């Protein structure tokens, strides 16, 4: 196994008396697609929230790219190369599609509050021109090239999911966390999504994927981790996971 990009060690988190994540150890290999599956309430999204810094753990360590990040705020982790999409879509509703992607470039661009006052009047600053070119490329990659000027929340549902991915990609992540990217998508949209995730991965982005659609998990991922009641109950290549009796009992068997 190559160097792990993300190394999680003894991570626990509870809400009141409810233990949502308990002593989780997890290694994410650089360059691959790693899926996390498990029944609702297994602690998958909480795990994402802990990795991105939206939540702090009760105990545990998170090492990313060799350094401890558990005490860093969200935005610092994004700058280091961790970005995510949300299960319940959270695009910026008052902003256009393009502006949503440009916002994703925030940590890769410069410019403060006084920047608008400097530079040539009536001409867009060079940094802004560059940012817009980059955003345009990303929109093209996710297949939203024609929608740049539209309001983000006007897009059809499937396209909003793609825009979430585009916005996260704009931050140039090394590790991209996708929280149920296919939720609510039809078969055709899911096939297109599969292609997109594969393409993003081929471009060198390691992917951590929470997903309920087993077809997607089986086709895309190299490693699958199964969570149940906040604990890891199985881990391995997708084919082995599918046959694992504990997994079948906890998760697959219930379908």
């Amino acid at each position, binding site marked *: 196994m190559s160097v792990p990009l993300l190394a999680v060690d003894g991570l626990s988190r509870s809400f009141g008396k409810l233990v949502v994540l308990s002593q989780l150890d997890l290694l994410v290999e650089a360059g691959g697609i790693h899926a996390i599956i498990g029944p609702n309430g297994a602690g998958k999204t909480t795990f994402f929230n802990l990795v*991105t*810094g*939206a939540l702090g753990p009760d105990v545990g360590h998170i090492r990313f790219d060799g350094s401890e990040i558990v005490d860093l*705020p*969200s*935005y610092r982790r*994004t*700058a280091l190369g961790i*970005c*995510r999409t*949300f299960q319940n879509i*959270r*695009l*910026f*509703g*008052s*902003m*256009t599609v*393009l*502006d949503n992607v*440009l*916002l*994703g470039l*925030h*940590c890769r*661009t*410069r*410019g*403060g*509050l006084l*920047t*608008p*006052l400097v530079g040539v*009047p009536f001409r*867009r*600053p060079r*940094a*802004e*021109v560059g*940012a*817009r*070119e980059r*955003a*345009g490329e990303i929109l093209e990659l996710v297949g939203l090239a024609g929608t*740049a*000027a539209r*309001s983000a929340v006007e897009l059809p549902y499937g396209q909003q999911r793609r825009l979430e991915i585009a*916005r*996260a990609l704009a*931050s140039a992540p090394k590790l991209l966390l996708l929280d149920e990217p296919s939720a609510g998508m039809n078969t055709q949209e899911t096939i297109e999504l599969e292609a997109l995730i594969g393409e993003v991965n081929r471009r060198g982005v390691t992917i951590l994927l929470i997903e309920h659609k087993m077809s997607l998990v089986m086709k895309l991922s190299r490693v699958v981790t199964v969570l149940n009641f906040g604990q890891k109950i199985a881990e391995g290549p997708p084919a082995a996971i599918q046959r694992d009796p504990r997994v079948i009992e906890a998760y697959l068997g219930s379908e």
Partner: protein
Amino acid sequence: MLSDHTVSILIFAGIDVIMALSFYLPASAGQLSAGQGGFMALGAYTAAYLTVQHGTPFPLALAAGGLVGGLVGLAVGFPALRLRGLYLVLVTFGFGEMIRVLFLNAPAFGGPAGFAGIPPATTVWHVLGLLVVLLYFFTRLSGSRMGRAFAALRDDEAAAEAMGVNSTYVKLAAFAAGGVIAGLGGALYAHYTLFIDPEAFGVGRSLFVMLYAVFGGLASFWGAVAGAAILSILPELLRWVKDWREIFYGLLVLTMMLVRPQGLLDAALLARLFPRGERAAARG
């Protein structure tokens, strides 16, 4: 040339627009301040004290007024980091009152009797000049990195953080910049009225400033500009409105909340007013 009366209407309306913009800036990052009158007082008293007691040249006094407004804005921003919505409104409201009471009890600034003998310095050109700079700034801000960070923070703070926005920094910057603008507005005000007292910058002032921006609509800074301009010039045009100002405003706001809760200029109207500009800006 313009009559003295017209000049006075223009100056007061211009200062109202400046104040409405000082409210709009933090509001565009989701930070509602009910204490802009306090920042205005700081700018007014700082600048007036400098020109009266130290004979400081007006431009320097003006800058000092903005600076003090900005520094205190930064300080107020810190408690604001932990507060949201109504709680933030209450704390900033308390701040405004605190500043008023502070000047009320400061003999060096005239206390309740007010601060008189301020040299006349503000002209209509100062006010218009500052407005031009502010409008230029706000126009360019909306298509800039920080402008987008403000909007993102207002839309969804957690998502903005997850996308790499340092919300602490952005909020403090928004509060400080709002303080600078209000401080400048206060300094201009003091050197036109030539007499200031704490009551001029109390709750009423803060609420009117907020009202201007909300009435105009918070979708764009043009809303604050239009709201303040309309609401401060209208009473001058209609005498009966002037006598019943508070009641008139109350009814206007009530009607607005029923008919057009998003304010005068909403996103749809703005898109119609600036069709090509908006689309070109979005396309890049």
